[in-house]
């Protein structure tokens, strides 16, 4: 039932439409990423605050405290990664991308990413950010506005349906 609902919500863009689509640029994608970062951190802060308050009334040994800190860090990483992977592989849009009206899809046929490709794109995104964000510079020059992570994962970022196309 849930799978059917997700499948119904997934937008499949025909190949011809992918090539005719309007690709999103660096600034728009950066704003969407900033919105997503705010959401991720807001949820993490609320949850970690709740956990910290709960632990403050319990007498936790120092060694356990360090372990909990490590577990918390791992959970934060998992939450951050899961956020992107789940949204990219279901609707193709994170909340930030939804607000900026664009979606991530496969470059070859315009379909929504599978979980594996979404994980690959996230790993490549991290790689692209490592050399002082130099991996994002190709977005400025590429004809399809692809960053290093898009090229490696075989994805493009296109304007979502419902928004009339504008000439750049």
């Amino acid at each position, binding site marked *: 039932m849930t799978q059917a609902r997700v499948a119904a919500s997934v937008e499949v863009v025909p190949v011809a439409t992918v090539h005719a689509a309007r690709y999103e640029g660096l600034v728009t994608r950066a*704003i969407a990423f900033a919105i997503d970062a705010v959401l991720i951190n807001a949820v993490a802060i609320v949850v970690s605050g709740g956990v910290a308050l709960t632990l403050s009334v319990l007498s936790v040994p120092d060694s356990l405290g360090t372990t909990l800190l490590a577990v918390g860090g791992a959970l934060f990483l998992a939450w951050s990664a899961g956020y992107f992977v789940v949204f990219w592989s279901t609707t193709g849009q994170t909340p930030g991308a939804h607000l900026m009206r664009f979606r991530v899809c496969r470059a070859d046929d315009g379909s929504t990413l599978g979980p594996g490709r979404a994980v690959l794109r996230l790993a490549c995104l991290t790689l692209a950010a490592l050399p002082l964000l130099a991996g994002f510079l190709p977005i400025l020059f590429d004809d399809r506005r692809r960053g290093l992570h898009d090229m490696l994962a075989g994805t493009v970022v296109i304007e979502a349906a419902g928004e009339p196309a504008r000439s750049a």
Partner: protein
Amino acid sequence: MSMAHIYPEQILGRAVSAGTAAGRAAVRPAASLAYTLAEQAIDRTLASGLARHAVSRALEGPLVDVVAGDLVRYAVVERVMDRLLAEGTVEHTVDRLLDGPELDRVAAHLRARLLASEELWLIVEEVAQSAAVTEAIAQQGQGFADEVAGRMRTRSRSADAWLERAARRALRRPQP
């Protein structure tokens, strides 16, 4: 002068004229006296409270209903209003009211009374909690958020185009 030339009807006419003049001379002081007496009688009647009593009795009785019926039957109010409108009295009165301090005074009084009344706040609370109002506020908020997001999208896409032009110019790459 011989009396033979005076006809009897002339004699009668002169006698009537003389009588009328004499009568007028006699009646003038009497009328003046009657007027003074009537005035005094009215003053005394008004001072005695008799008039008030009479008016009170008249208002208690069916007179008011009769007068009201006649006012309606003969369309007195409409006729008076037509006349007032035709002569511009209504406009003049409205202008005077709007220009004068009375309206401000009445408005201030009404405002003070309204703000002091508990019923007003109950009505405001009821209206604020109504489904239609909350839905309208939610729609307005959503419309505002959509508008802000739309402007942000437009500007970000302009910034994209500008940044790409600048980057291509800096690296001497051909513009798309």
